[in-house]
């Protein structure tokens, strides 16, 4: 604490006819927020949780290898799919995407971000970018480790398929969790778990039109196509996949993510938080 008046003077603000004040671009603001959020993720507790996430699928596969005998490539692929693009990505995004707005409200930084020219949109999109980058990086590391210990024949041939599934899972689910993050920021985690269970798992496994709007259907269908399992599956199981080409599956996830993000941005643009909801 200072005991004398040590605060100085500043150059005056620009004159009215001077160059306009910086407005920035949305892209620059998004990148600034993404960098800021990634810095926040580089803490020891977060890194420890990420390390657990990296190790867990490999540990499960090693345990499975000890239990089962004979060729088990199919089983390993199913376990890899359930653990990495589904469980690990889902958990990573729940932790990183859901608190996008709630964290800022609790820390008292919401007002300081929202008063910037593109602050609200940049907060959401920058957090989305950071969440996708962080979760995908953890999932890819987990994938590499799991493939290395999987005991499959030619494990690295599966890498492109699973890396694509990780990328699409992160993209789609991060956008899906953006909606609860802006609609019910203080209950976003609970709401997102609800969305994940009801939309992704319950609706995603209903052989009806509604599951066309889920990420899980697209990922499952890509896995089945990528592994060439389509014709071997029982008729009942074939109802749970979509036989459209790969580009349709990928395009559907990208389109779904785009629609969800635009909706989230528009909602956040209009959100008003009374002072009592902050800090």
């Amino acid at each position, binding site marked *: *604490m*200072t005991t004398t008046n040590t*605060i100085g003077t500043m*150059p005056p603000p620009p004159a009215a006819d001077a160059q306009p004040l910086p407005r920035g671009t949305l892209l620059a603001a998004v990148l600034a927020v993404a960098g800021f959020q990634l*810095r926040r993720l580089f803490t020891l507790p977060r890194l420890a949780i990420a390390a657990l996430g990296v190790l867990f699928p490999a540990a499960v596969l090693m345990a499975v290898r000890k239990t089962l005998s004979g060729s088990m490539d199919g089983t390993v692929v199913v376990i890899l799919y359930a653990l990495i693009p589904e469980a690990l990505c889902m958990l990573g995004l729940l932790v990183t995407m859901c608190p996008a707005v709630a964290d800022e409200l609790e820390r008292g930084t919401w*007002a300081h971000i*929202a008063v*910037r020219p593109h602050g609200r949109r940049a907060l959401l999109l920058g957090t989305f970018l950071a969440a996708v980058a962080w979760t995908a990086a953890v999932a890819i590391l987990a994938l590499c480790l799991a493939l290395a210990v999987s005991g499959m024949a030619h494990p690295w041939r599966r890498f492109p398929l699973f890396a694509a599934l990780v990328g699409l899972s992160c993209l789609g689910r991060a956008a899906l969790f953006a909606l609860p993050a802006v609609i019910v920021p203080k209950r976003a985690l609970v709401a997102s778990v609800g969305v994940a269970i009801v939309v992704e798992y319950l609706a995603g496994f209903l052989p009806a039109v509604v599951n066309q709007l889920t990420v899980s259907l697209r990922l499952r269908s890509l896995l089945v196509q990528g592994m060439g399992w389509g014709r071997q599956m029982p008729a009942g199981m074939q109802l749970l996949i979509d036989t459209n080409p790969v580009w349709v599956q990928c395009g559907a996830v990208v389109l779904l993510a785009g629609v969800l993000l635009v909706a989230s941005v528009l909602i956040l643009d209009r959100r008003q938080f009374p002072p009592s909801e902050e800090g």
Partner: protein
Amino acid sequence: MIEVIDLVKHYTSADGQIVRAVDGVSFAVGPGEMVGLLGANGAGKTTTLRVLATLLRPTSGTARVAGCDVVLDPVGARCQLGYVSATTGVPDRLTPREILQSFGRLHGVAAETLDDRVGELLGVLDLVSCADRPAGRLSSGQRQRVSVGRALVHNPPALVLDEPTSVLDVFGSRDLLAFLSNLRSEGRAILLSTHRLHEIENRCDRFVIIHGGRVAAQGTRAQLAGPAGSLEQGFFAAVEGTRA
């Protein structure tokens, strides 16, 4: 520079009742002028400042910053305004330098001028010695100065501060208010709310007293206090006159 015309802001409470937080407030702050916004808790000060900062949308009426309407051109208004909230909201893990750089980038300050700008702010706000120390280890006064620096990083001509001295001790308050006086003398328009009337009594050019969401009185210290009175007496007279 800052204009508020017949501003109304209503909230709907949890039980469905309409709360008239601001109910027809009008005032203006010119360039090179420092205006104190006074009122009891719940008078509508923070809501008024938040409407100006584009954090809340008015129910009706107009608010402008440097000619930019906060509803029709919120991005323009944000470019012209620096905002300091009652809570410092300074991230504990980042250093003052990192905070100013992050918010400068977020605001769109050009990369080639950002380092100079941040260095200048650290200097004038007397933060050089702690510029690379995590904000969690700074004193309240230093954190508040970081918050002020964050509001000034884009060199705005208008500044809105919500109880900026509430977390400061007497020395910190004096330093901050002296700094704000310097900003005023550079031609910036400054609007600040506070409960500490004695601190700003001789600093502000004019005062706006709000009570129950309405302007109870506004004018210079002499106009509000009368020849022998203090600003505090003028404040009580205005508020109790409204109550009566």
